[in-house]
């Protein structure tokens, strides 16, 4: 009987929580991280302003994540364009609801100044985009949780898979696309819309 009372109270609380979040049943950026959240990986990132904080600070908003490096001659500009293309496929009012995060594969060279220069050169919206560099020892791990494969080449360039990964507000991978360029992948855009 006592149990039933607790169950009823719990159900009531759940109902209230549900209502507070409207149609979205996922508690946004609150409570313990889900066990399949990439933010379970402790990952200090240094951003273009030189500020270092763990990437779990990105929690609370869906994020489109990709790995890149600033001196990348060919593919990485395309990755940036893909991020923009997905952004522009959303209604203007919704763009602020999703962030884009570019994580460097090249901590040896990609300091905050390089990140800032690239953000300016590629005209990305600094309020929506985060360009950041992990510690050298963490690159293989973040690539591991994101499913990105890479190899440093003899000339200092990187050979890498060019995936855009969509994280929900809790850091769970909900979609990915390897289609890069100014034409967004419609299935990926749809997955982003579902997160808003």
């Amino acid at each position, binding site marked *: 009987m006592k149990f039933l009372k607790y169950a009823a109270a719990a159900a009531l609380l759940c109902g209230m929580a549900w209502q507070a979040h409207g149609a979205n049943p996922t508690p946004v950026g609150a409570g313990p991280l889900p066990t399949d959240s990439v933010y379970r*990986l402790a990952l200090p990132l240094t951003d273009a302003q030189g500020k270092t904080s763990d990437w779990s600070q990105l929690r609370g908003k869906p994020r489109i994540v990709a790995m890149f490096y600033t001196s990348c001659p060919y593919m*990485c500009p395309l990755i940036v364009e893909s991020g923009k293309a997905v952004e522009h496929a959303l209604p203007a009012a919704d763009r602020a609801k999703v962030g884009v995060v570019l994580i460097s594969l090249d901590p040896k060279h990609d300091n905050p100044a390089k990140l800032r220069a690239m953000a300016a050169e590629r005209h990305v919206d600094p309020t929506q985009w985060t360009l950041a560099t992990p510690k050298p020892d963490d690159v293989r791990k973040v690539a591991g949780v994101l499913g*990105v494969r890479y190899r440093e*080449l*003899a000339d200092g360039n990187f*050979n890498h898979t060019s995936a855009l990964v969509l994280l929900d507000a809790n850091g769970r991978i909900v979609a990915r696309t390897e289609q*890069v360029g100014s034409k967004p992948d419609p299935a990926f855009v749809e997955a982003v819309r579902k997160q808003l």
Partner: protein
Amino acid sequence: MRAALAGCLVFACIAAGAAIAAGAAPRYVGLPGGEFRTALRYEDYKGKPARVAPFALMRTPVTNGQFLEFVRAHPEWRRDRVPQVFAEPRYLQHWAAPDALGADAKPDQPVTWVSWFAADAYCRSIDARLPTWIEWEYAAAADETHRDARKDPAWRERILAWYSRPSSQALPRAGLQAPNAYGVQDLHGLVWEWTDDFSSLLVAGDNRDQGDPDKKQFCGAGALSMDDRDNYAVLMRVAMLSSLEARDATTNLGFRCARSAP
């Protein structure tokens, strides 16, 4: 000559240091390194030999018993506590319980069903790291008497014979094989092994959208191909490692740790 001697001294020291730390049988053996021609062909270093720095490598793969000690000391790596993002659901599934081995996991068998994240955490917990691919390939090129036995047809045959054995049989104990020319055991014929940089093995065959520039999977040049197509030992390892995600675990995939020369 002097440089070679100094190199030998350095690696003797690593081995000796490791021996003291591990008690009776030294756990690591020192490898001198040097120029090494990988069986892989990368567009970016066209047949030039790679340079392997002196390093120490565990004589045998990490066993169930050793991994159990690690899991007890670091319970966040128990199969019932590890975040799914670091290990798939089959992680350590052959153990009787999250903190006990049982009949299907003998203490002296190599540990398998471990993800790359778990293998990496184990090595870091003992101030070591996973070997790189080139270090593994370099150590595994040796037979019992030669540092580079790769052109020997008999050696190749022996390795092929292992691949043709069904993997449903129980794993032998670690350390049963004769040491190779460096003193390392079980590199072939026991388990597959993680390398630190397994995800740098970008095999062109992985790219299902070849020819479509919009779907080009790799940035820039450098997908690898095989320079030595008869070297099945390497070919099969690379095919396997290049197909894995860092959270994957399989029935015959284990690991051993390495240390850089100080």
